[in-house]
């Protein structure tokens, strides 16, 4: 791709980008959010047809000009893209999804035998372990992703673009994906691997290109780089510490959960939280680690009053037993929750930043009859500014913000309540390195002010780097709480997979 420039109204997304990709290699593309990775790939895969960008794409010696129905052209040429958000139909089977729109026909009717035998063949050829007639919706995320890849491969893709493929995968599924990519490399299928996850880039890629602010910073073989050099290229500054310094001032116990048993709200006889007990102190950051499905989000949502049926157990705030029946009650007791999925649970995307920040805080600037808009604007601006939300105006719609800024909006809205206990569920998922650091600083500031913080994270290093103590959950049970001094990645992983229990020494 040479001298590719793409502009959107008001923003230059790609500025004279040139890069070369060798056939059969796995080429990583790295960069912060907004660096232009997705835009570049969209041009290559035909989402932005010829004419909407300037510059050239040369593929196998030929200049590519995708016009109407560009995505289809790209696929026919052998360029397929697998998106972070899967484009599968959950109510159809694996085979049906793979051949959607191209079902083999016999005398005007779909030839199911051929469809399924071709599916089986395809899956075997690439070592994909998926039942070909299962409904896609019943498969775990990891397998769904593999179906997407199979779909691309069934189109005889010679260039496969993977956009953040592992954000929804478990550790085991990521390894499976890596194996499959190695098989593809052996078959001379070129892969473009867009990712934030540096460990994966180093594991699987041959070459890496770093984009920043729409420009190519550098392209290097992976062997010539390490974590630090890569991060420096991405961010442009030396990230000596990934995590800001903390000065913990831990006070008294403020939240006590005892023997909490929570039932699943819909599925009968399914217990989601099994006798969990823990306490949380003022000024402390309690990290909660665990694999996907271990019940961490469910635990905190129950404490917040918005999940499941609490069968037994007690929650004490400031030594007083409370029944938290809804988010409103939780808020009254000083608990705030920044939810896991910021788009679905944390924000109203069509509304402005101002309206989003104001929503749980309406009491602060309105009485029954009046909404003091000036006061609202003033207070919300304060918080947005103190959290460095980057936006030209508070009236901009939140869906125009980057992931990091969106997350800051969610945090602002909860901070305004001046919570006693702040729960953050995977707050840095899908956010670029720079914004992550800013959020870490915010968390540290809050804990220094005495706010008790629960931090759920799926990133081992984050949990280790930010917490005072780490609670590890496995399948709804509390496997133990480790102080950060004693914690190691290995110990936490063992607890998270249920191999070991851990009992902290009584103080």
């Amino acid at each position, binding site marked *: 791709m040479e001298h590719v420039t793409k502009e959107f109204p008001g923003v230059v997304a790609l500025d004279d980008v040139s890069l070369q990709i060798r056939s059969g290699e796995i080429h990583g593309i790295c960069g912060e959010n907004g660096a232009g990775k997705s835009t570049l790939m969209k041009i290559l895969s035909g989402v932005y047809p010829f004419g909407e960008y300037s510059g050239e794409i040369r593929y196998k010696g030929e200049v590519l000009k995708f016009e109407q129905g560009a995505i289809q052209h790209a696929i026919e040429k052998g360029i397929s893209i697998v998106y972070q958000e899967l484009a599968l139909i959950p109510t159809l089977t694996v085979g049906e999804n793979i051949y959607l729109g191209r079902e083999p026909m016999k005398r005007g009717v779909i030839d199911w035998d051929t469809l399924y035998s071709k599916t089986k063949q395809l899956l075997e050829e690439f070592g994909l372990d998926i039942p070909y007639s299962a409904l896609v919706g019943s498969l775990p995320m990891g397998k769904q992703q593999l179906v997407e890849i199979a779909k691309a491969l069934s189109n005889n893709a010679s260039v496969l673009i993977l956009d953040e493929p592992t954000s929804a995968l478990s550790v085991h599924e990521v390894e499976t994906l890596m194996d499959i990519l190695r098989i593809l490399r052996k078959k001379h299928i070129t892969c473009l691997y867009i990712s934030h996850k540096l460990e994966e880039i180093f594991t699987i890629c041959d070459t890496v290109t770093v984009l920043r602010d729409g420009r190519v910073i550098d392209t290097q073989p992976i062997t010539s780089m390490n974590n630090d050099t890569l991060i420096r290229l991405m961010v442009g500054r030396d990230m000596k510490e990934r995590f800001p310094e903390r000065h913990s001032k831990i006070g008294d116990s403020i939240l006590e959960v005892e023997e909490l048993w929570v039932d699943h709200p819909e599925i009968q006889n399914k217990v989601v939280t099994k006798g969990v007990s823990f306490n949380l102190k003022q000024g402390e950051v309690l990290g909660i680690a665990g694999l996907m499905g271990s019940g961490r989000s469910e635990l905190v949502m129950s404490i917040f009053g918005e999940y499941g049926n609490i069968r037994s157990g007690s929650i004490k705030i400031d030594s007083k037993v409370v029944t938290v029946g809804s988010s409103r009650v939780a808020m009254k007791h000083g608990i705030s929750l920044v939810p896991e999925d910021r788009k679905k649970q944390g924000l109203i995307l069509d509304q402005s930043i101002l309206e989003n920040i*104001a929503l749980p805080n309406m009491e602060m600037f309105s009485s029954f009859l009046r909404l003091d808009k*000036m006061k609202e604007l*003033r207070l919300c601006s304060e918080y947005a500014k103190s959290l460095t939300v980057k936006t030209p105006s508070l009236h901009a719609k939140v869906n125009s913000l980057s992931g990091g800024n969106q997350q800051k909006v969610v945090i602002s809205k909860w901070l305004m309540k001046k919570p006693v206990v702040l729960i953050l569920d995977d707050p840095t998922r899908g956010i670029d390195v720079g914004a992550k650091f800013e959020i870490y600083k915010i968390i540290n500031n809050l804990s220094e002010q005495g706010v008790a913080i629960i931090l759920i994270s799926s990133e081992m290093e984050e949990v280790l780097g930010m917490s005072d103590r780490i609670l590890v959950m496995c399948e709804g049970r509390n496997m133990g709480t480790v102080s950060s001094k004693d914690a190691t990645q290995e110990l936490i992983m063992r607890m998270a997979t249920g191999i070991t229990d851990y009992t902290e020494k009584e103080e």
Partner: protein
Amino acid sequence: MIIALVLIWILFGALTDGIFFASRNMSNLFRQMSIIGFLACGMVLVLVTAGIDLSVGAITGFVSVITAYLQAYILAGPIANLFPSLSLQAHAVIISGIAVVAGLMVGTAIGMWHGFAIAYLGIPAFIVTLGGQLIFRGGILGITRGKTIVPIVEPFKAIAQGYLPRTLSWVIAVILIGLIFFMTYHGRSRKKQFGFPLDSIWKDYVKSVVISLLVILYVSVMNDYRGIPIPVLVLIVTAAIIHYISRNTKFGRYVYALGGNREAAKLSGVNILRNTFKVYALMGFLSAISGIVLTGYVAAGTIGGGTNYELDAIASCVIGGVSLSGGSGSIVGALIGATVMASVVNGMSVMNMDVFWQNIIKGIILILAVYMDVATKKRNG
């Protein structure tokens, strides 16, 4: 959709050799549109919560016959006995007052029932209000026994058929213009006080001047005939109140939030159940107003009153830019939509077209108007 409205007006003006624009016709047009206007105001909030209310026509008709029934059969005697010293006219006013209050209470009660069933019992709005439609249409037949209920006392009729005297209409125009300029000035000074950026002074005041000119134009056209029709005045006041509620109260904010993203709203502390209940109760109240005006307008309680009004209300909202999936829409838009619908019907009767054409054309206009909206959105975004 303002463009659509203007185009439709020009079209009918041309087709009718300008009779469409005669002040008497314009006066009738706005009077007719007011009945749907009340429903549209309430329907905006219902649609914003991604709900729907199919019963509003039936509620309108039901309240209409209840108020008629009270006046014609029940109240005359007792009032005369209770206040023997007062004149007949005074009796009529008291009767009207009681009928109005009763009608509002009935409509609100029905709305509250719907709100309860939808919010607290969890029955889908489509079903609850569809059932409501059947129930209350049946109720209408029950109360009227298949006959039209007459007579309606004069003061009650005045609500729908009366006009504001010309001088009073001008007074109102002046007050309105004064308000417009005051609000512009006040808004600017408050913004300055808090250090917020101001639009250019020209833009603000030109806008005020344009709106003021429209007000003057409107009042002069209305006054050319007999003055501002009273139901239009009631509609303007009601719409202003509902508009204020939707933009400047907690309730309004919660309604738009819960329509925009129900789960996020819930997790942000919005009481979904209570606010949903209130929306449908409000809809019931506004349907009652519509029913009262209807009775006064046709001077009777009829068995067919309000039929299909819900579809007109929904169409007005959609033409006016309300999204059926919830979260967005404005009162002003809905009223413009209602005006579009009323203009089409009015234009066709001025042209002496057969009545069956009206529904056909209304349906086509609805599809076209929304298409225009979708097309401009696609171009801009």
